[in-house]
């Protein structure tokens, strides 16, 4: 079977810093990683390949340096990597991104074989939208299976797949057809350590690099800023509350006194709270 995994290289967001004066993101020197949610998708894809045979193609759209994330994916054991990179993609919102990626996946299908399953992570840690997966599914007319916790069965002959999907208040078991798009839930598997051979060869493997034209994208008005219906008009830091927290002075007090003092302060501000707090007899 042919499995395509769409990943994104993201800044390690815990380390993002904001310029104190201009309120812009300071990207210089910020390390990048494969979006952590995408690793669950990649691992699941590798497991399917190991169980059913076939190939895993990883795809990413981004600047030339996004190649790093593809090499990491090759190191984990992906069979092929495709980098979609072009200045026409700059400024893409989720709609324009799903357009470009779906065109590239169609091209991957023509070139390397039609995918049976396309995977994405649940969402990215920098955008947090969870919209690109459903966008790709809709554009390629793939059956959309989001928040998948487990792939229960795949019947390649019957082209059927059964998955467990997290939904509000529980888990659905869904039966659908291949080809489908799966967004994989976090914590559902654990990324393997790649084999020594894969780790060693990842650095020198050929990566397929496509521009918009090479990926078969003719309509550039659907790409990048021009193809993005949403416009970011303002980026700003949240305003601080006018007053800072009232500090309880800790000098020369026992923890017990401090705790009592805090509780008095809480109930002075919220008198209605005290009768509501439970006592469990501990």
């Amino acid at each position, binding site marked *: 079977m042919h499995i395509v995994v769409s990943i994104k290289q993201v800044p390690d967001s815990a380390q993002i810093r904001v310029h104190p004066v201009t309120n812009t993101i300071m990207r210089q020197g910020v390390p990048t990683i494969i979006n952590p949610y995408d690793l669950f998708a990649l691992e699941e894809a590798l497991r399917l390949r190991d169980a059913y045979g076939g190939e895993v193609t990883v795809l990413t759209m981004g600047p030339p340096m996004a190649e790093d994330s593809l090499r990491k994916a090759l190191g984990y054991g992906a069979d092929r990597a495709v980098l979609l990179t072009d200045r026409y993609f700059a400024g893409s919102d989720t709609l324009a991104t799903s357009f470009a990626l779906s065109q590239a996946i169609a091209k991957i299908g023509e070139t390397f074989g039609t995918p049976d399953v396309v995977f994405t992570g649940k969402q990215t840690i920098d955008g947090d939208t*969870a*919209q690109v997966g459903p966008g790709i599914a809709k554009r390629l007319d793939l059956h959309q299976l989001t928040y998948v916790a487990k792939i229960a069965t795949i019947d390649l002959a019957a082209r059927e797949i059964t998955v467990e999907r*997290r939904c*509000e208040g529980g888990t659905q078991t869904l039966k659908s057809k291949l080809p489908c798009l799966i967004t994989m839930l976090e914590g559902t598997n654990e990324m393997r350590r790649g084999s020594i051979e894969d780790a060693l060869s990842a650095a020198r493997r050929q990566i397929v690099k496509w521009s918009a034209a090479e990926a078969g994208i003719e309509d550039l008005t659907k790409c990048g*800023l021009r193809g993005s219906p949403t416009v970011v008009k303002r980026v*700003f830091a949240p305003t601080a509350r006018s007053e800072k*927290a009232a500090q309880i002075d800790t000098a020369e007090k026992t923890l017990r006194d401090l705790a009592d003092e805090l509780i008095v302060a809480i109930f002075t501000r919220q008198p209605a709270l005290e009768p*509501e707090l*439970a006592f469990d007899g*501990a």
Partner: protein
Amino acid sequence: MSNATPDTPRPPAGRAGMKKELPERFRAYRHVWVFIELERGQVHSVSFELLGEGRKLADKLGVQLAGVVLGPPEEATQNAVAQAFAYGADLVYFVEAPLLADYRNEPFTKAMTDLVDTYKPEILLLGATTLGRDLAGSVATTLLTGLTADCTELDVDADGSLAATRPTFGGSLLCTIYTLNYRPQMATVRPRVMPMPQRADRAIGRVIVHKLSLAEDEIVTKILGFLPDSQSGTANLAYADVVVAGGLGLGGAENLQLVKSLARAIGAEFGCSRPLVQKGWMPADRQIGQTGKTIRPKLYIAAGISGAIQHRVGVEAADLIVAINTDPNAPIFDFAHLGIVTDAVRFLPALTEAFTRRLSPHSRDKLAS
């Protein structure tokens, strides 16, 4: 994003969206819609919260607020219609079909896009639940319009455009996003981000019934089963009155026990900040913040949490925020109401014990006498 010349219009070249010039085909789009999320007979509270927010937007625009109810032919679906009116809708768009009994992407996307194409709303709001996100992404892509996820603030501009504000870059900054030249303008909002409006029961108003032009054999995906969550209590975290949470300042996973003990002593729910989930110290459904749960408790106690923006947006609607942190410059003290600069690992047991002393029936009797 320079602030130097805020009043100078940007050049339209190359940036189609920056220039507001609504194409002719979108000019008839009017009114604000809220998707009423109905699952297993219950309307999700986020739908009421969105009706409250939608009411404000509709009033500012001088247009109507509509609820969109998609469901099976059951009493619960009728109840959802009544509830939409009770929480502020002027009218309801209603699609009733057995296919809509449990959520599946295909029939819901079809029903929603058909409604939008037929009745043309300018704004469409959905809850950022697993259901709402699954649906919103498909609907926006089908309609080829803009969708802004996880908004924390919604407003309309002087020219009537929806200004959707959300945290960005992993929650380090906020940004305001517009969908200027496309309709509808779509946005999702997480549960508990907006306040719950007052319910005011009244007669059912105008209901516009629309037929779903789809048959079961046209739908590929079938539901084989549903397993409800066991009552682990996490479902209550977003709606709890009192919440205690721990952060990296606790030092180690074993110290989360201190958070849980305090929570148990005062009948609170417990949670954590994002790094703890990333470290695997707590499951993701206990995470509080932009990418986790948004909470609006009466009392929130944050122990060893520094207060990054992505955490802040998830808790700042709490009535009273108490922060315990060793770093006097931690950002959490910028939005907490009460602060103690001390080591949470040492302080939490003392606080638990003090609460227990104060709240025990014995001491309550003494207070009463």
